[in-house]
């Protein structure tokens, strides 16, 4: 299992790096799928098979597909790729990368500097347990999630509508009043 974890972790990191360095969005998204799958494997090794399944279905499936659809709607062409290339100069990414590295180093310092916890055998937390908790103490959270999704749908519908006029709504009101 350990080995599986490390390989999956390595894949996840590598593919994520690939995601953030691609110029072409579709390529990046494909790497993203790989990354999500690798993380799903990590979930499995951590004893959360249900979550692994969800990761693949929702992240790698639904969300990525959604993004792909949008990209298709936006008609990305070669020029855009070229522009991505221009935008992503070393001078742009060195600073943030360094800062993030500092953050990571501090995180690592916390993790590694902490007292090593006692060794315990891994116990899987299966879907049944999760389900019991989900519809027991977390019932309210589930309801809220439902509302959130509902709001997301409504919001997406409202925002995604194509309006005829592309001026500001205050201006619109004024023109209507006039």
């Amino acid at each position, binding site marked *: 299992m350990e080995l599986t974890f490390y390989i999956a972790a390595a894949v996840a990191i590598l593919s994520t790096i690939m995601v953030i360095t691609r110029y072409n969005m579709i390529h990046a998204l494909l790497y993203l799928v790989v990354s999500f799958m690798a993380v799903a494997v990590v979930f499995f090794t951590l004893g959360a098979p249900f979550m692994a399944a969800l990761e693949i279905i929702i992240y790698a499936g639904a969300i990525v597909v959604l993004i792909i659809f949008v990209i298709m709607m936006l008609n990305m062409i070669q020029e855009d790729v070229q522009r991505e290339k221009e935008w992503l100069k070393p001078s742009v990414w060195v600073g*943030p990368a360094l*800062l*993030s590295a*500092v*953050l990571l180093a*501090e995180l690592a*310092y*916390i993790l590694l500097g902490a007292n090593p916890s006692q060794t315990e055998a891994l116990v899987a937390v299966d879907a049944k347990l999760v389900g019991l908790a989900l519809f027991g103490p977390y019932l309210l959270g589930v309801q809220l999630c439902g509302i959130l999704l509902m709001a997301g749908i409504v919001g997406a519908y409202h925002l995604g509508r194509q309006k005829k006029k592309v001026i500001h709504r205050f201006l619109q009101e004024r023109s209507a009043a006039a």
Partner: protein
Amino acid sequence: MENLLWLIPALPFLGAILLVLFGGRLPKSLLSLIGVGSVGVSALVTILLGFEFLAERPLYYQQEVWQWFSVAGFTPSVAFHVDALSMVFIFVITFVGFLIHLYATAYMADEADFARFFACMNLFVGSMLVLVLADNLLLLYLGWEGVGLCSYLLIGFWYKEPANGYAARKAFIITRIGDTAMAIGLFLLFQLFGTLNIQTILSDAPQVWPVGAEGALLVALLLLGGAVGKSGQLPLQTWLPDAMAGPTPVSALIHAATMVTAGVYLIARMNVVFELAPLAQLLVAVVGAATLLIAGFSALTQYDLKRVLAYSTISQIGYMFLALGVGAWSAGIFHFMIHAFFKALLFLCAGAIILALHHEQDMRHMGGLRKSMPVVFWTFLIGAGSLAALPLITAGFYSKDQILWYALAGENGNVWLYAAGLAGAFVTSIYTFRMVFLTFYGPAKTHVSHPPGKLITIPLILLAILSLVGGFIELPHNFGHLVLFSELLQPVLPAIEASASLAANEWLFQLLAAVVSLGGVFVAYLFYIKSPYLLHRLMHNGLAVRLQQFWFAGWGFDALYDNLFVRPYVFLANLNKRDIIDSFYTGLARTAEGFHVMLSQSQNGVLRSYVMGIVVGAIMILTISLFL
């Protein structure tokens, strides 16, 4: 009668109030009736009161009108106190004031602002009466400042001319400087005596202070400061010549009856304090002596008729100060009274001349008026004779001789003061007769268009008579020995003893004074009538010309003060017009604004930079929580 005391100052005030309220609506005849009538009735009351006073010979009359205010033991009243000294003053003020008012109705007849003029004149007389009648120093101060205000209003009466406004302001501000010294003196007096009642202070002072006490000296000096400002003495004399900017009756009122004699009154009134501070008293004499010389020499060089008279006033008040300073109190007051008569006379004559010559004041453009204006000529000659102290016939001789005599023979007198007085007398008669000769003799240079009417000549004649006979109430003891005046003042003012060693030779000094006076007349005659080429020759001498210019400019005092005080003050004030302290707060605001600009630049709308901000913040928080 004594219950009517309050009427004396109240009537002029009433007149002033009526004129202010209804001045715009009444005809001129009614206006002059109110203006002159109020002072006239006041003079009538004064004369009746004076008769009663002379008959009864009380120490004083006193009347409290109301209590002004009362704070923790400080209880000044609006109360009037009249003793012999005040009696003399109110007589001069109301009587001479009345004559001047009468004259002014004719003089100002063509003036549009008739009501304003008489309102101010009435207010002037009223304030002066309050000044001399006040029973406490605070009320005296009220009159004192009121006089200053009225002088401001009247000197600047023709306000459209900026120079007049300047002269008016100068008069007010310079006298106010003196007043400030006096106010400080009042604080000190109140602290020491717990009251400002004059009689209380005078009776308590000898117990509080020994002779020569520091407190007495300080108080005396501060009061002298006030007196010097109002009376136009050194070093605050510069406003008086400029005060000629007002109409001529105003000049007469300021110089003869009111205002400038206030300082004399104050010192005479506070005589006990000055006697307790011999040093201050000596200073009074020295100031008087110096002023009479300086002003006399300036008068020699002036061409403006009124300016000559103005300098002569300064000089004559210097004589009064000299008299007060050597302790010849009653002599000083006597000279004040006589001076009021002849100076009012001279000014009113000058006014008649100026009016007749279309407001021409320059003596170089006058001349030959002896024929065309005989009444004015004769009255002016009498006034001039009195001013020059022509022996035996004029009142001025008796009063001035007394001063000169005590300046030498009095307890505090000395040879230097006497010499100054004598030199002053010589100069006085020179400039007086220079004025007479320039104005009335020689060829006529300006046509007389406006011969003086009755309203103008009657006051002149009355004053001329007084200028002649006024002196006979007080005659030297080796010559008639009449002491009506000093006897009257005896209870109020300390008497003076002449030193016995000199007394035997008094006639010698009287003769000297007479000779000096006549000599002055002769010199003037020599230079201006007999042989004018002498004057011409003198004017070609470089030193003489420079001296003449120096004296003409009033010994450079104006320029000195201008450079020393006025200009630096105006410069500093204008420099700081924007208020330097405000720039500190403005700077504070600017700094805040700078920070605002700096911080608002970070709000650039670029999403990534916001995220960057979050990251940096996270790093900082983590670092702090980890390593600190």
